């Protein structure tokens, strides 16, 4: 009886999760479907399919400009956030020091902050200091929000790191740099990898921070917002769909890389 009701609950949970997944992917599917429609205005069911909007978008050099800007921003954000987040995570999770608890809460604050307000505050700050809005400024703005997140992601890995390994290496005569390269880095590599992936993708999809700070260098998300507010053009779904492909490819490559790495380590052990 008890077991029966448990199985009931479990299958209900599976169905519920399936429904949530559907809810998640219906609109994304909508964007992709409409990007392959032939007509100028979207009508469902789609009567004729074509890839002509892809051709047009690519010919218009739009994808290049937009996606390249988005890519530059995301790549810079990922690299800088990794460096800052790495040290930040050591302070967050590795060392016991006076002020650590305060530090932990302090650096969480930008995450728990309305992003539109943060973007605007940064714009005022840039104006005051004399920095012109540009894609570099957008990188800085993204970092304010993404560095704490990357710090958290790496911290989770640091918590699981056995400090005595470092001490053993020191005892065996390794210097600080060798310990860092041979012991600390490999142990934290998965956390660093996920941290970088998170940073890249969150920056890639960000809108509220870019819109205030990037000035004339328009990213994909900004272009979409402007076009959508002013009306429909068939390029909207196409640009949107290309950005979806980008995220999915990067995410899957990352996942496969992590799984392969774990397999390799298990095999060696």
């Amino acid at each position, binding site marked *: 009886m008890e077991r029966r009701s448990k199985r009931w609950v479990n299958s209900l949970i599976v169905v519920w999760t399936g429904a949530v997944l559907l809810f998640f992917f219906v609109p994304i599917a909508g964007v992709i479907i409409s990007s392959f429609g032939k007509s100028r205005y979207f009508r469902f069911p789609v009567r004729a399919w074509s890839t002509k909007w892809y051709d047009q978008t690519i010919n218009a050099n739009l994808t290049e400009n937009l996606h390249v800007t988005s890519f530059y921003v995301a790549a810079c954000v990922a690299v800088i956030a990794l460096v800052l987040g790495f040290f930040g995570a050591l302070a967050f999770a590795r060392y016991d020091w006076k002020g650590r608890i305060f530090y932990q809460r302090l650096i969480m604050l930008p995450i728990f902050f309305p992003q539109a307000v943060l973007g605007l505050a940064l714009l005022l700050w840039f104006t005051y200091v004399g920095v012109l809005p540009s894609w570099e400024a957008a990188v800085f703005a993204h970092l304010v929000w993404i560095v704490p997140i990357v710090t958290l992601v790496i911290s989770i890995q640091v918590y699981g790191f056995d400090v005595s390994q470092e001490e053993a290496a020191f005892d065996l005569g390794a210097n600080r740099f060798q310990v860092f390269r041979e012991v600390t880095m490999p142990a934290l590599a998965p956390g660093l990898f996920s941290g970088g992936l998170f940073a890249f993708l969150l920056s*890639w999809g960000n809108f509220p921070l870019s819109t205030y700070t990037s000035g004339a260098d328009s990213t994909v998300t900004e272009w979409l917002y402007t076009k959508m507010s002013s009306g429909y053009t068939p390029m909207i779904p196409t640009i949107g769909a290309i950005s979806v492909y980008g*995220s999915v490819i990067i995410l899957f490559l990352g996942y496969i890389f992590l799984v392969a790495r774990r397999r390799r380590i298990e095999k060696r052990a």
Partner: protein
Amino acid sequence: MTTTLDAPPPLPQPNMLQSFGQWLRQPGFLTASPVLIFFLIGFVGPLVIVLGFSFVPERTFGFHGDWTVDNYVHIVSESYYISFLWSFGLAAATVACCLLISYPVSYGLARVFGRWAAPVMLILVIPLFVSENVRLFGWYLVLLKGGGILAGSAKALFGVETGTLLYSPGTILMGMVYVYLPYTLFPTMLGLSLVPRDQMDAASDLGANRWQIFREVELPIAMPGILIGSLLTFVLAVGAISEAKLLGGANIVVVAHAILHEFTYAQNWPLGSAISMFAIAITGVLVIIVMRRLDLDRLLGRK
């Protein structure tokens, strides 16, 4: 008199400067310093500027030494409170819906799915990394009048003409739930995965029913995760702007939109700053209350 003579000589106390120097040399502080410096430049600086701007006279673009609280009076005396009610009401409703929807899923991920949990999680993560504008545009296509996916399917399958759900508060709420669901889902899952299975089994062996286990064992232990998720969702939802704009048309002006309006069309930076400070103050109080109750070390799995 004799007692003072018997007292041990005072130990040499390090002066304040020395102990401060020692504090600065802790490895923890040293590794924290890059992030802290960045935090000062990237977060504290901008906040101070917004705070400053909220006290200068209307329609000025710099600090000239005359301060005023007119902007705050302006917010209270005019109808800006409607925007605040909308934003905070929608945010609260979003949190409630997200919790209800995500709890069973997080429970499944933490307990039921086993080795399927990782792939399911991967699939759930994807939308988080697709720009919310793309996804909201997807909803626009789904709900579009006449030729939208919903209306189009209804017509093709059942031959009925349906209206559109676009441009109503309910649709804005759905869009917000949709966009912010992952932010509730993953922290909740993190919290639930902290609940030891033995403890639930023990409670069950001692005769507790499902509801009692939920209330007495599961919920208290998972609470930090649930709190973080709710807080994150709430704060992000307060700052939401695209949902109301893309799915709600021009009917509802949320706070983030009001702020954007002051900074662009109206060119009234001080008023925009004051509205921002209001929003910051309200969310800030919430964040501080919740943060004080959290043990981040435990939540993130310190051994």
